[in-house]
């Protein structure tokens, strides 16, 4: 999946206007980044990438870009051509 697409999913998760999340923001700056928001993020990652993240991995993240980094090769830079994850994860 391209990074831009992933950021749009985070916008939706955090109840923000599409295009709000850029990457460098601190996670703590989002009201939606609470315990249910974190569980929602794990569910989203499971759904789209079939990856099971542990809470402690997420606890080690300070910014949106840190979350992107957690997913490694699953997220490609924008306009890189081929996305590694399918849009609907199925």
């Amino acid at each position, binding site marked *: 999946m391209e990074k831009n697409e992933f950021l749009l999913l985070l916008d*939706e*998760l955090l*109840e923000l206007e599409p295009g709000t999340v850029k990457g460098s923001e601190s996670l703590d700056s989002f009201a939606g980044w609470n*315990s*249910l*928001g*974190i*569980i*929602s993020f*794990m*569910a*989203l990652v*499971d*759904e789209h990438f079939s990856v*099971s993240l*542990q*809470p402690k991995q997420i*606890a080690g993240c300070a910014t949106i870009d840190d979350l992107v980094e957690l997913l490694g090769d699953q997220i490609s830079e924008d306009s890189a051509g081929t996305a590694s994850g399918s849009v609907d994860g*199925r």
Partner: protein
Amino acid sequence: MMNPLDLTGKTILVTGASSGIGRETARLISQLGAHVVLVGRNEERLAETLRSLDGEGHSAEPFDLSTTDEIPRWLKRISASSGPLHGLVHSAGMHKLRPLRVLNSQTAEDIMRINVVAAISLAKGFLQKGVCASSGSVVFLSSVAGLTGQAGVAAYAASKGAIVALTKALAVELAGEHIRVNCVAPGVVTTEMGEGLLGMLTPEQFAALEAMHLLGFGCARDVSYAIAFLLAETARWITGTVLVVDGGYMAH
């Protein structure tokens, strides 16, 4: 010595027998003398369960319960070789932690299909002539999530609440056929499925959830005892009930 839980000579089908509560129930009822028909998707894991059973006359029947329309015909074939069934335990189930914001209808439908629609089809199949013995006991798996609110599990909770309603409706409909229908409602049990969910919690969330279970988290054996009770003569005057097995979770 008399054992009121004795299941000698009874043939009982258990879905979800390749892991967790289903596997443990199969083991326990084999120890109580039952012939067990094991159902699950994974052939290898079913064979593992089969090897761990006591006694003889058991069989493994790999089957994908999401093909719900096939279930009655398939049950007819199974009972032709196993002989009439005295009991049915639907322990196969799907649980996904999905807060509403990330819950999509496909996931909700998948959960309902395995947890509820398959239960309906199994009961329908069980009712067929020659499939069920002269009397029978059906046990479904509900959950405390179907009885009280928990965040992040709306689809699962809806499916488990539906099981309670299904249990009562079928108890009334099938009493005249000498089929009892009950369900158990477990709290958090440390099966593979339970541990997958617990793994998504922070240490604080984990501790809070555990504290709600006054006797700590349960194990599959704790739930299988309740299922055996509902299958055996011990529950001959019990139908349409929800047996809560939750270490005190619902006592709050």
